[in-house]
């Protein structure tokens, strides 16, 4: 996941030579970046305009639904720390707060959510870390 921001600029750089293909890539969201992994930069630049890039892209393509902030949809103005079961889906099994990129929460709500989770932890409604 940390390579995502790194991967985005190459996709844009690719756009001028072959406008149609990269656009399709853009729709599939974060899909293509994963394919390239670490050493991705150079091969991608070759594959983009040329033929070999095409089939590869088709094979590995997968759709990622656009994530929408759950709280924005419901117009939530205040995240209640007392409703621990409501916060539960935003916490990993071990008690970590899930990052925004996993849940699709917008930055404002993530901020409130983090606060709510921390409050809930303080009063033993949510764990700091699950003990084994």
């Amino acid at each position, binding site marked *: 996941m940390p390579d995502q921001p790194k991967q985005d600029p190459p996709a844009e750089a690719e756009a001028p030579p072959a406008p149609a293909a990269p656009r399709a890539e853009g729709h599939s969201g974060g899909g293509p970046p994963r394919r390239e992994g670490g050493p991705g930069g150079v091969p991608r630049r070759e594959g983009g305009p040329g033929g070999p890039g095409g089939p590869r892209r088709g094979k590995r393509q997968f759709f990622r639904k656009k994530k929408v902030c759950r709280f924005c949809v419901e*117009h939530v*103005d*205040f995240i209640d*720390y*007392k409703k*621990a079961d409501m916060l539960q889906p935003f916490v990993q099994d071990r008690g970590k707060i899930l990052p925004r990129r996993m849940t699709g929460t917008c930055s404002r709500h993530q901020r409130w959510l983090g606060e709510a989770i921390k*409050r809930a*932890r*303080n*009063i*033993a*409604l*949510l*764990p*700091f*870390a699950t*003990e084994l």
Partner: protein
Amino acid sequence: MQERLYDLIFICRPATPEEEVNKIVATLEHSAGEHGGKVDKVERWGTRRLAYRVSKHREGFYVYLVVRGTQSDMIKELERRLKVADPVIKYQTIRLDEELKRQAKLARHRERRAGRRPRKAAPTAPALPGAEQAAPAN
């Protein structure tokens, strides 16, 4: 000073008899009154499982209060009482009024925007075909 609103939660040992809890709530109400405050709401959530061990307990009796007051000493006094009270194993006070204020502000803002939207769509309709479609829907 403006009136402030607080959430106060405390957890008692699971074996605490009901009267003990009532006594603690009564003392809190009393000392809130002494400092010019008021306990708006008392909710007993009952015995719940704690997410982690607190003073070797895995369960606790939760009591939730909503307190309002104007003096900051009030919370100090309430927390001191909870600290001293034997059956209480954990407590937390959270100031709520600013968040409620923010919430009200956002709600007002949204309302205003919702009211403005149809009016705004009308003049832009000729320029944007998308807006044209949206306008009759509203």
